[in-house]
């Protein structure tokens, strides 16, 4: 017993020491050489959402490796450090604080979590670090006049919801045909899942369809009651707004209650391999949006990664994952950050390390033309994106893809969100935010500075 007490005392002392040690450990990375551009990577490779977080993180990191293999960002080496958040907001904040000053200052943060995005939105302006939330985050942050540091590039949840309704209208043969239709939204009961509701309600008012909301509690493993309700109401379509295990469970429950998977449409976070591969044949016919890209096994960038990263044994994850949906999402997210830096270098000096503020300018003036995208190896993967000081989203190109039982296949043409609907909503919500926060929105003149 006595020995134990000593062991305890020693471990306690170690605890105390740890407190002092934590500082030096994290200080070590400080003061690196210039000509390095540091990318913090918030990931979740563990916990309930790991199956989805992992491929995203692998794609993100692989792209940084690819850039370096190709000579860096105009000669500047891209460095990175991962920090595990477990999809928890407080750990994300800790990671943010840990990484924001590392490696000469963080370039931009990408949290891959709506909850963390909300928290970091309050912190990023203070630290002057851009926050890229490609395909997630808060929809109203597309208004760059208010959300100076947020970049919901490529699309927000309102875009997703809008396109889904457009697609359904097209299926039915026109918006007027939606009248009287029943559409159910099965959503993750969190800010993430609730984001589209505002837009769907707006659209329901416009077209006279009947929207029913069916929340599913985190993490979404128990959905029997939800699907019993679906069975009772027999909606014409089910929109699925899930993440992680919730998606595959929804598909299984749909099967168990006999709801046709062809009538189910997921957001782009509910349309990747982990959501369907385990359900297999039973998910056949299920549709989901794609945030521009889908599965891109034949894209040049995919081949580049295989050759220059995996080929040299530098691959982050398994080889067969390269090109899959979430992997590509991570890869594109990283690319957007890198391109922001590149754009900033155009103005502030090529081959130099950019500060957060400079990167923000770069992200605000992104102009990824088709030609540039082709050069980067993204031909066929995505369409041109260009941002401005007032528009932090850039573009809203979306397609639908369908699971054929063994792989995803595109099943629609390109869509764009209806600006007439989205813009007023973005303005309304962002100005309300500005009022609460006593932010004066930037004017176009201020943008020119």
């Amino acid at each position, binding site marked *: 017993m006595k020995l134990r007490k000593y062991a305890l005392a020693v471990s306690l002392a170690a605890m105390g020491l740890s407190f002092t*040690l934590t500082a030096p450990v994290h200080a070590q990375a400080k003061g690196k050489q210039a000509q390095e551009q540091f990318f913090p990577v918030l990931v979740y*490779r563990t916990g309930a959402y790991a199956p989805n977080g992992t491929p995203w993180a692998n794609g993100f990191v692989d792209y940084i490796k690819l850039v370096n293999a190709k000579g860096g960002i105009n000669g500047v080496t891209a460095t990175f450090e991962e920090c595990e958040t477990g999809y928890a907001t*407080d750990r994300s904040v800790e990671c943010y604080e840990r990484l924001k000053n590392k490696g000469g200052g963080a370039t931009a943060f990408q949290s891959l979590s709506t909850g963390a995005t909300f928290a970091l*939105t309050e912190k990023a302006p203070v630290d002057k670090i851009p926050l890229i939330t490609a395909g997630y985050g808060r929809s109203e942050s597309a208004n760059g006049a208010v959300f100076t540091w947020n970049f919901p590039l490529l699309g927000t949840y309102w875009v997703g919801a809008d396109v889904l309704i457009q697609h359904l209208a097209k299926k039915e043969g026109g918006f007027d045909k939606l009248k009287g239709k029943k559409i159910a939204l099965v959503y993750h009961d969190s800010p993430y899942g*609730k984001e589209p509701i505002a837009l769907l309600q707006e659209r329901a008012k416009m077209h006279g369809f009947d929207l029913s909301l069916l929340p599913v509690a985190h993490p979404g493993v128990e959905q029997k009651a939800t699907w019993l309700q679906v069975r009772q109401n027999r909606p014409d379509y089910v929109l699925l707004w899930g993440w992680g295990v919730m998606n595959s469970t929804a598909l299984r429950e749909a099967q168990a209650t006999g709801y046709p998977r062809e009538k189910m449409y997921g957001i782009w976070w509910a349309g990747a391999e982990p959501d369907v591969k385990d359900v297999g044949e039973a998910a056949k016919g299920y549709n989901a949006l794609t945030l521009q890209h889908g599965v891109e096994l034949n894209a040049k960038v995919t081949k580049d990664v295989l050759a220059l990263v995996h080929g040299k044994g530098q691959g982050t994850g398994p080889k067969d994952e390269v090109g899959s949906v979430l992997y590509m999402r991570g890869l594109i997210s990283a690319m957007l950050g890198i391109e922001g830096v590149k754009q900033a270098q155009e103005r502030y000096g090529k081959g130099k390390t950019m500060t957060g503020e400079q990167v923000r300018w770069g992200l605000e003036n992104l102009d990824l033309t088709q030609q540039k995208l082709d050069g980067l190896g993204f031909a066929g993967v995505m369409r041109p994106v260009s941002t401005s000081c007032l528009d932090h989203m850039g573009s809203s190109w979306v397609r639908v893809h369908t699971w054929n039982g063994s792989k995803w296949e595109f099943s629609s043409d390109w869509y764009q969100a209806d600006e007439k609907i989205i813009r007023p909503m973005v303005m309304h919500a962002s100005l309300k935010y500005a009022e609460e926060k006593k932010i004066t929105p930037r004017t176009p003149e201020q943008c020119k500075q």
Partner: protein
Amino acid sequence: MIYRENGQFKTSYAADQQIFPILQDRWAILGILVFAFVAVPLLADEYLFRAILIPFLILSLAALGVNLLVGYCGQITLGAGAFMAVGAYAAYNFFVRVDDMPLLAALLLGGATSAAVGVVFGVPSLRVRGLYLAVATLAAQFFWDWAFLRIKWFTNDSSSGSVSVSNLSAFGWDLESPTDVYLFCLLILVVFALLAKNMTRGAIGRQWMAIRDMDVAAEVIGIRPMYAKLSAFAVSSFFLGVAGGLWGFVHLGAWEPAAFSLDRSFQLLFMVIIGGLGSIMGSFFGAAFIVILPIFLNQMLPWLGDLVGVSISTAGVSHAEIMIFGALIVFFLIVEPHGIARLWSTAKEKLRLWPFPH
């Protein structure tokens, strides 16, 4: 100086009833306060403040609240996170709905709301005990998780259900820099710790402990279990509510109910059990242990890996982190089931007798 109370004779009961009757303790506390208020702001960097010290202070406050209920009054709760959430959302509503509401007032009103809710959810404790009560408190946890997601009024009709605050200031003091936020939290914590200490060494504290140790006997000597238990729930929830408000307002800035999930409740219970049930000091030890250890492991493991030339993947680090964390908790409970505070007092007793052990 040698830690000894010999020769320090008390000539009045008043002197004997000071918070810290022993002279050396008074010096030590003074020293700690000076260190916390003066030295830390000079020494710590932003990371230490924002990622470690501020969460530590706020969670210490919450742990203090849990300890009053669990450690002093003996009512196990697994719903502490819910009361933090109630405090945070109530404070938010007072803050945004009432014009010119001062921050501190909003936080205290949040605490008061949480106290009222705590009393309601404390009612089952009059009938149900022990583990049954613990599980029953989960009802509060899940109910409030749901309520803040579903009832739009609580979130000021925000479309996503997430809320945020900024431009905080108290008494004309802008809470911008990490040092300011740290000092603000520290100040609140010190005041609340003092209040907690006063209550626990006063009549109400004795009533709580009496209920904890032997409720039938307590009733027989004229302590009303209802008053004692519900007051413990109220005070505990008040502390938790203020802590929740701080967590939302100054630590996260923007939050959703998941910030106060069941994991938070478990975390707080861990703090008081590892730190020491029925010990104010223990709440701080526990909070330090639980806040710092995972972060430390998370940063230490890759560093250790580098030393021996192994690079550990992020996933590997986090898995190792939770394994070590879990194992250490079990280890601590086995070696010292009464928590770090007991170890501390044993050490003090040894010191008191040193260098003559008998």
